[in-house]
């Protein structure tokens, strides 16, 4: 049902354009979170260079998770979600559309902003390249898993914090392979293994997460 997919993505992007400040909040959080680490750890360049991949990745993970409840919250409240779920055979398309919208609005900006933070941590150009590449492959995984979490916790009071608790363990492989790729490049080693594994995680998630998310939506709205 590619029609439904395109319609939902277009609408989500248009809504985000009407609320530009809200759409920028994940990036703002990411910036603040990343900047806290040097303040906490000390400004020594060697240390910062070493922790940079992990810090950027963890901040990206948290930023993605914090913004994902919004995927469904307003649609649930004003009844739009019900209308979307009524379209025959379009449940998967809607779920994928939501994940894509989330990635376009949160993941992609993170990927684009990553080089700036790489410079802040005095990373080498190769390492920054690896950071961008790993985030490019890894942030869709975060969006897909966050999507699942949002569907599971639909309408619950505890919202974002609960979502982080249940989804973050599932994101750990992506975190390990993604940050590991950058660390490997930084150490002058090949990151090929990391990228392959990260890619495998992406494919695995892309195939299974939408199914699980569609089931979660059904459970949450029955």
């Amino acid at each position: 049902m590619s029609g439904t997919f395109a319609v939902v993505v277009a609408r989500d992007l248009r809504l985000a354009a009407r609320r530009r400040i809200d759409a920028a909040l994940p990036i703002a959080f990411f910036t603040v979170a990343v900047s806290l680490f040097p303040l906490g750890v000390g400004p020594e360049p060697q240390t910062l260079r070493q922790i940079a991949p992990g810090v950027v990745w963890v901040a990206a993970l948290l930023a993605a998770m914090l913004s994902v409840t919004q995927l469904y919250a307003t649609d649930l409240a004003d009844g739009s979600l019900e209308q979307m779920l009524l379209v025959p055979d379009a449940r998967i398309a809607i779920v994928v559309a939501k994940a894509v919208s989330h990635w376009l609005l949160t993941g992609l900006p993170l990927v684009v902003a990553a080089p700036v933070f790489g410079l802040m941590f005095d990373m080498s150009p190769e390492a920054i390249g690896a950071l961008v590449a790993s985030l490019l492959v890894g942030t869709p995984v975060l969006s897909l898993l966050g999507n699942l979490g949002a569907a599971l916790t639909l309408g619950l009071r505890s919202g974002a914090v609960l979502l982080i608790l249940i989804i973050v363990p599932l994101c750990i492989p992506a975190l390990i392979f993604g940050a590991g790729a950058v660390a490997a490049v930084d150490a002058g080693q090949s990151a090929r293994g990391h990228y392959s594994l990260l890619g495998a995680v992406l494919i695995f998630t892309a195939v299974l997460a939408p199914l699980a998310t569609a089931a979660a939506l059904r459970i949450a709205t029955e």
Partner: protein
Amino acid sequence: MTTANHRWRLYRFASPATFYPLAGKLVPWFAAVAAVLAAWGLWLGMLRAPTDATQGDSYRIIFIHVPAAWMSMLLYVVMAFWAAIGWAFNARLASVVARAIAPTGAMFTFVALWTGALWGKPTWGTWWVWDARLTSELILLFLYGGYLALVSAIDDPRRGDRAGALLAIVGSVNVPIIYFSVVWWNTLHQGASVSVTTAPKMAAVMLQAMLLMTLAFWSYAFAVIFVRARAIALERDNRAAWAGAAVGRTAAQPEATT
């Protein structure tokens, strides 16, 4: 029968009305078996197993650590299994059992982590090492925590059952991937140094002790899970006839209120 009971489509399991008294009778037996096996296993492990050449007597904590770790992993899969059955067949008792398993599984995970730390301190000098097994055990604790948090945050019991089942299934599928990634992470970053606290070469009596302890924990788990499942089933079906009768049978209990 009544409009409430026709919704119990329990194809292969006894209805809660049957489960409640049956489980109640079994609990003391499981508890007794657990106590006997634990006493025997601990006697073998603490007193009869030989002292290890390199680790001395501090290694004896593995007789609790390893069975607890095994139970923590096994119970997660069992929990996911029953939750999935409950979801697929709309079998409420299966979902109740899954919910009853989670706290016990989490407890074993916690025990495994804690005893792992106790083992690490005399052996490596630190209370915690980020080795693959302990780190995976920690992540398993998060998975249990996530399940418990999710099902308790959902007011509607059936939605909670199904959402929990989905989360448990997703967790089970991911556990091998998570474990693999943690092993990868561990070997890459720390090289050979922080290798796991290796168990000493197993004398027969050590294996025997671990097996006994595992069976003891297993029996204990049955007892505790049955007690908890009875309580949950009673609470859920508190308006049904069998629940009132069950509570009435127990002396000095207040009447179940709707």
